[in-house]
């Protein structure tokens, strides 16, 4: 009985209709939260006493950093589920995570560089967090590269799933090694907000941004996953129904 939800979720038609219904419920709040968070962060929040207005980049940089790590973890988790239970829907989710995660990781890197220039006087410093994000981007690129190199979707799913799992096992090790390496070389101080003393007018927009980016990621990922499920279909009659329903609505 406890597995009933699992099997239901694993069924492509159920997943398809679920994502169809769920995406707007995630997408619209995500949009509102992001806009609200940015408004609060860029307009209402007071300037930081050390970094002045440059700190406002945190409202896009930090949520992007969070989403990049979350998307990689989710991708690896979904890939592992897909490998272990041979679940196509899980593979579809993993495939959907990668491009969104990679683009957000790139955003995190570029905004980090734009923040670095006024703070450190240089666009690129070998800051461990930036380096870690860069490695994460390479993990994503490798994953997508492997996927696109294999024509057969089912083989691509499983091969890239192995890679994602190997990658996620390595993420903590890479993180440790980069931090350790940084501690030896004393690179410029890390971008850091004054965690303890952040007033609510700064903190609330930041939290809104975090939540907004997270919901946004799930919304876009589910839309992509819907397409990926459709690609993995093997002639189930549900596709006909879904496409017919779509035609009527359009």
């Amino acid at each position, binding site marked *: 009985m406890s597995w009933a939800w699992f099997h239901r979720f694993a069924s492509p038609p159920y997943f398809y209709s679920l994502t169809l219904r769920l995406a707007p419920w995630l997408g619209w709040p995500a949009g509102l939260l992001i806009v609200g968070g940015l408004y609060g962060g860029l307009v209402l929040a007071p300037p930081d006493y050390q970094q002045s207005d440059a700190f406002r980049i945190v409202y896009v940089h930090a949520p992007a950093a969070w989403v990049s790590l979350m998307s990689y973890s989710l991708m690896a988790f979904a890939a592992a589920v897909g490998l272990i239970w041979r679940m196509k829907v899980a593979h579809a989710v993993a495939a959907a995570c990668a491009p969104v995660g990679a683009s957000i990781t790139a955003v995190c890197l570029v905004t980090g560089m734009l923040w670095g220039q006024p703070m450190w006087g240089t666009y690129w410093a070998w800051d461990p967090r930036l380096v870690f994000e860069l*490695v994460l981007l390479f993990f994503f690129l490798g994953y997508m590269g492997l996927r696109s190199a294999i024509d057969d979707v089912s*083989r691509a799913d499983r*091969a890239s799933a*192995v890679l994602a799992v190997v990658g996620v096992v*390595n993420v903590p*090790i*890479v993180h440790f*090694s*980069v931090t350790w390496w940084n501690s030896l070389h004393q690179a410029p101080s890390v971008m850091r907000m004054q965690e303890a003393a952040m007033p609510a007018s700064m903190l609330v927009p930041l939290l809104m941004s975090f939540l907004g980016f997270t919901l946004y990621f799930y919304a876009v990922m589910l839309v992509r996953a819907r397409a990926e499920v459709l690609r993995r279909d093997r002639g189930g009659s549900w596709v006909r129904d879904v496409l017919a329903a779509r035609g009527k609505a359009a």
Partner: protein
Amino acid sequence: MIREPSALHAAAQILRRDLKLAFRRPGEWLQPVAFFLIVTMLFPLALDPELSRLRQLAPGALWVAALLASILAIEFLFREDGRDGTLEQYALSGHSFAWLLLAKTAAHWLLTGLPLAIAAPLAALGLGAPAAALPGILAALLLGSVSLSLLGAIGAGLTLGIRRGGALLSLLVLPLAIPTLVFGARATQLAIQGDSLAGPLYLLAALGVFGLTLAPLAAAAAVRISLE
């Protein structure tokens, strides 16, 4: 015929077979070592031949060259056996596939990782390392090349059967090799400075043990998928 499907015997035979094959074609496994030596030779030519300054760059130059050489070599780990059906027979041999691939990887390490580690002190001398540092450098490369071979086995398994998979292989393996590079270069640096390099050597050994336990499983899964 006495039926005795001992896993150890099977692995030993794979190891012997791969070594015998390699010795019939010595050119193939000597190439990565030659590549390694050439790349390390390029650094003084491109930068500055003054030994005191070279010494600072030596750890990085050695490890980047070693990393590239082992990536170059690992591409051939499964390719021939994948093409001629040997890997299929391994998969159907009734032994753990991961175990047999570990034996293959071990043979590969003996043919590329070990010569690389032995050549490294030589290259290090050319980069201005003092003689006292050479044992430490040898130890660091011995330990590090184990992880590199194991990580490479995963990448080689994933890209087996992909045409022009070489560039993809580096894209997959190099990010995974970052910890090995960091710890290995640090160990080399400490060795050159004459300090104790026990810390990074332990870390390298830990990476090697971790890789030994998990990488063959991942490589076996990857090769199986590639063989379909």
